[in-house]
């Protein structure tokens, strides 16, 4: 017989009330585990979409290029950078890329656009534009002087596959760069900005046209896992071979994406706090009732020599038992539910079809991790413990004689 036994048995004095309290804690934990996993899963989908369609997880660029892209800010020896990337653990694929703004003219119209030089072989491993060709074909080394253009741009220039496009710009050395290329394919990413203003050509054509002399503007890489990006970035930043270059991750490259994730996370946290407060009131009610109901008993126990401190300890043990069982139930059920949906995914409704076009799953897969499993329940645990402390701390203020008069 000990205080643990006393606390345990006290819980079951009001079985229904205790079970309801534990279920309130359990369902709140379940919700938090699932919702946090869902949120992190959706962030991964958002990042995945951004990475697949534009930035990659990481880029190596000339210092200052990301802040102010200029033709002359180049990675002079891309082969060296790619050697380093090929032996860096965690890197899945990489490709070199150059880009600049030019004037593109069809027979009827002229538009300012971005022309991007890519290596079609390595580009496929990093970006998914190759899968988004709606008409014609993707770039091929066997078809030089061919470009692919976005659907909106094609419409604006009134141009189609097989038609010619004149490109006029400035080369790296400041001279005029001009050429005529053939439209080999038309792509649709669904991102209007890209579809309206992007032309892709072979990196070798870009190199010749803009006198790049073998230099490129960026080496774009993807990591095996999103969570590895930070680690890989650090490893690359510490590599002496890249000391004069900038290593940027998707956060640096798409700060807006990070901000929208943060905004969503904050609104989620506010909702979770409200949920936790509701649970806190539930457990406070249980413990206030317990203290009121057992005031007489506390008086008797103090009369026979139990110190108030010991009674507080027993009350807190009761709180911890109930909270612990509720949290355990919530974590197990939350993990099971999350794992189920992590396998089958949650359809995104109307957005699903759109996403699927771009090679991104139209379902959100909740992502269970130690963080999503523990953060919510830990918050509930701390709050319920503090909440239980409030009624428990009434005990030391009781006078045995007065307490024994309580009904």
């Amino acid at each position, binding site marked *: *017989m*000990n205080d643990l036994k*006393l606390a345990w*048995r*006290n819980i*079951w*004095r009001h079985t229904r009330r205790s079970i309801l309290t534990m279920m309130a804690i359990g369902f709140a934990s379940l919700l938090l585990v699932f919702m946090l996993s869902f949120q992190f899963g959706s962030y991964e989908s958002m990042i995945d979409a951004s990475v697949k369609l534009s930035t990659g997880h990481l880029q190596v660029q000339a210092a200052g290029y990301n802040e102010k892209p200029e033709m002359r800010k180049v990675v002079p020896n891309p082969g060296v950078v790619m050697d380093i990337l090929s032996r860096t653990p965690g890197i899945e694929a990489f490709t070199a890329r150059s880009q600049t703004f030019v004037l593109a003219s069809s027979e009827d119209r002229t538009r300012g656009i971005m022309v991007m030089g890519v290596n079609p072989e390595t580009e496929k491993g990093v970006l998914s534009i190759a899968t988004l060709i709606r008409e014609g074909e993707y770039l091929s080394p066997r078809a030089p002087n061919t470009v692919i253009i976005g659907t909106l741009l094609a419409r604006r220039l009134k141009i189609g596959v097989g038609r010619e496009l004149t490109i006029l710009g400035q080369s790296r050395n400041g001279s005029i760069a001009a050429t005529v290329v053939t439209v080999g394919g038309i792509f649709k990413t669904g991102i209007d900005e890209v579809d309206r203003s992007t032309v892709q050509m072979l990196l070798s054509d870009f190199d010749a046209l803009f006198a790049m002399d073998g230099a490129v503007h960026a080496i774009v890489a993807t990591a095996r896992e999103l969570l590895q990006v930070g680690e890989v970035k650090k490893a690359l930043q510490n590599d002496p071979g890249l000391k004069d270059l900038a290593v940027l991750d998707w956060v640096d490259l798409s700060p807006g994406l990070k901000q929208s994730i943060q905004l969503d996370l904050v609104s989620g946290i506010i909702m979770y706090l409200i949920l936790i407060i509701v649970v806190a009131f539930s457990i406070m009610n249980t413990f206030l009732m317990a203290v009121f109901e057992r005031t*007489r*008993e506390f*008086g*008797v*126990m*103090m*009369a*026979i*020599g*139990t*110190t*108030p401190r*010991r009674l507080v300890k027993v009350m807190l043990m009761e709180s911890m038992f109930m909270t612990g069982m509720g949290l355990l139930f919530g974590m197990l059920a939350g993990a099971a539910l999350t794992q189920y949906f992590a396998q089958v995914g949650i359809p995104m409704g109307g957005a699903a079809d759109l996403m699927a076009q771009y090679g991104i799953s139209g379902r959100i897969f909740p992502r269970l991790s130690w963080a999503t499993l523990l953060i919510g329940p830990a918050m509930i645990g701390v709050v319920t413990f503090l909440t239980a402390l409030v009624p428990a701390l009434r005990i030391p203020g009781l*006078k*045995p*004689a*007065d307490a*024994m008069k309580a009904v």
Partner: protein
Amino acid sequence: MNAVTVSDVSKIYTQGDVKVMALNKVSLKVDAGEFVAIAGPSGSGKTTLLNLIGGLDSPDTGHISVNGKAFEKMSSGDLAELRLTQIGFVFQSYNLIPVFTAEENVEYILQLQGVGKKERKQRARAMLDDVGLEGKYDRKPSQLSGGQQQRVAVARSLVSNPTIILADEPTANLDSVNGESLLQTMREMNEKHNVTFIFSTHDAMVMEASKRLITMKDGAIAGDQVK
């Protein structure tokens, strides 16, 4: 040395705007081994006096000491320790811990004293045997009759070998058979262990069985008769 010394003790309770003089300059000495009944009508101050002697409440004026220890010099922790080691309580409505068995209720005091598991089990069972509850060790209070519960309460008050037992109307909720039996048990404990018993009571049977009868009226001692 007196087991209990009460000197000029007064206690006033405030109920709303009304002040009630529960005890008015009460003085009393009880020697070790006495079997004392405090009688008087409701509101005469019996329970208040017992609560003050047990350190469950504090007097507004006056001094109380138990076994030579003056309460006014003691902290609430010291008083809890004194109650644990030297004073046993028996209450009118038993006041057992409902989630414990009879044996665990008795054992609990010994656990508070830090007695080892094996010894406290032995002592608890021996004490329950002494009060006539052999074989009822595992019964919860709800599974015992009122008389049996009160016997558990007596066993609980005696198991820690206190020098003084304070019993607040212990037979009030019992029928005459159970009341007489309990009284007999307490009398035996008094004689066997030389434990000082102080009762508050309305019960003529308890008054009859006592060796000293103190009568109270309006918060003061109206009579003190040694038999």
